[in-house]
């Protein structure tokens, strides 16, 4: 079957570089955001989340930045590794509702 990565924007980086993946969200009422990673043939995996009362949150090798003014979310991955190759997509919670998901960006890491 077709890969979920087809038709997606792609970011290609070298191993060891820092990666920045961007997401424009749609609803100004959204108060909670999540980044997911999906490797080929697997289900999406939770990476990191952030609430709208914050503009930055750090995890292990990952940082999420939130700019509510322009409705923009980014995921920064430090020292990118081949194992980071996957589709990354953001999710937003528009108020008292379930999550809505972006279509994603494929990250390709070359050794």
């Amino acid at each position: 079957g077709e890969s979920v990565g087809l038709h997606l924007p792609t970011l290609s980086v070298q191993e060891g570089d820092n990666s920045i993946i961007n997401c424009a969200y749609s609803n100004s009422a959204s108060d909670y955001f999540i980044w997911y990673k999906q490797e080929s043939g697997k289900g999406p995996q939770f990476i990191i989340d952030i609430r709208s009362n914050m503009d930055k949150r750090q995890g292990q090798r990952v940082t999420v930045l939130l700019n509510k003014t322009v409705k923009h979310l980014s995921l920064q991955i430090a020292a990118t590794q081949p194992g980071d190759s996957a589709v990354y997509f953001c999710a937003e919670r528009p108020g008292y509702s379930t999550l809505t998901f972006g279509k994603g960006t494929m990250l390709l890491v070359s050794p």
Partner: protein
Amino acid sequence: DVKVTQSSRYLVKRTGEKVFLECVQDMDHENMFWYRQDPGLGLRLIYFSYDVKMKEKGDIPEGYSVSREKKERFSLILESASTNQTSMYLCASSLDTGGAQYFGPGTRLTVL
């Protein structure tokens, strides 16, 4: 760690067959979800359940039904499978309705 399991990784069925996809979560989550994922279309919500025996239609419920008889188990039913239901099906669970969702490994269904 949250664990969500799905009954099959790959499934091949014929047009008109009744298909059952099972999902089980072990974290006592109230909410469970079924999505389909197709290239270029992202995740689309089929149905979700916020409690035992309770269900809500998602964005694309046509041709599907669901069952939640126990808190840990959420089933997706294709009453009469059609070729346009060939897809990757993902189950997820969450503690809160709008909270972080945790996904299973997916079932790639092919309808011939």
